[in-house]
């Protein structure tokens, strides 16, 4: 099981690859759309890559609830347990 920091680091890496942002800027309170300027296709790409990286399932209907990076980290942690 990965702890919060490990999940955040792994997710930040994916977001950085996808957006060109610095991984250090991908912090828990950031909103994917408002702060990180991630469109819906990029979000789905990030979800697909996160599912593979963390070996979890993030249902499509769940994605709309993942407003912030923290929401995603929390969901991934929960799905792993």
């Amino acid at each position, binding site marked *: 099981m990965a702890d919060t920091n490990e999940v955040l680091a792994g997710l930040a890496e994916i977001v950085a*690859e996808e957006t*060109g942002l610095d991984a250090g800027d991908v912090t828990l309170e950031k909103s994917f759309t408002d702060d990180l300027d991630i469109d819906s*296709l990029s979000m789905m*790409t990030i979800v*697909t890559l996160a*599912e593979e990286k963390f070996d979890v399932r993030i249902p499509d209907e769940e994605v709309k609830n993942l407003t912030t990076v923290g929401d995603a980290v929390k969901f991934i942690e929960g799905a792993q347990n």
Partner: protein
Amino acid sequence: MTDVVVTGLGATTPLGGDVPTTWEAALAGRSGVRTLDNDWAEVYDIPVTFAGQLVVQPSEVLSRPETKRMDPSAQMAIVATREAWADAGSPDVDPERLGAVVSSGIGGVWTLLNGWDTMKEKGAKRILPLSVPMLMPNSPAAYVSLELTARAGAHAPVSACASGAEAIGAAYEMIQSGRADIVVAGGTEAAIHPLPISAFAAMQALSKRNDDPQGASRPYDTTRDGFVMGEGSGIVVLESAEHAAARGARVYGRVLGLGMTADAHHIAAPDPEGAGQTRAMRLALERAGVTAADIVHVNAHATSTPVGDMIEARGIRGVLGSDADGVLLSATKSMTGHLLGGAGALESVFTIKALQDRVAPPTINVTSPDPELEVDLVRDTPRALPADGQLAAINNSFGFGGHNVALVFGSA
């Protein structure tokens, strides 16, 4: 009729990462063909183990997100577009008067086949959401439109190995018909993947000279045995002469004419009489308002196939008649390999540079010219074009499916 001029050039090719290095290598008669540095021969038993591969990978010049969002074919087009646009002076133009016409012969074949590999291995859930915008054949045109905010129209005419030339032809017509003041046009191809290589080889279209990659592309040589796959992109910035003059743009040359025909003979084999090819050349000359005597240079389609090269050469002799005596013929695929949908665009760049520098690039690897060749072939070292006066040249491109495109360019 609106005159159309060329104000910017861009390329990324097996000879170099931009136009200056590519052109310098072409004039030096260098080959961009190399043995593939991978295990495809062992794993798949592919019959051809070499190709004209890019010197500078797009990943070396694009950002990481850009390389993840675009198929390699679009990446190459964007690299060439940035060079061409900067070369044109990054013109200030109304977005609704700026167009993009960028073609690929095959499209996002890497994306499609990588996606299928992923699907077989991991299932549908692992297919990335950007797969469709990456694999669609209009993707390079769309990304160029996005890059430059080109809103007059974005098009991707597809005609196999004539695609790049057809794109430039379509861009020329967009300006002539008044739809745009500037159109960024060209072609791109990223198909050096084991499946397309094997498929072209299955047609007996490729040279199998695995032990001599650099000598494999030898248009007009008696021992030619097929074309050599290449990859890359060529892009030109076309502009109405009026718009270019108003902003004081540097003009490389002019697009004088276009001839496009279809063989309706066979899905892949060229018409042995070359009727469609010669008609394309005649139509292009007619539209350009020039005569055979005005033509000083032809950049031939000449892919190094046993049948195709001589059909075209006889056609050139037939169209130009006795005036062909004054023509210098170049087959630059001898150095670059065949860029498929990128070929007509890169060779247009070569033709425009030849007129600008008044020099015809060499054809390499021709040690015993086909005895039937009746046009003066530039071999091994470049040769000078006439130093004075207006010059005109033809660039031919033909594609599987019987597509024939002849472009006539003029000096500035």
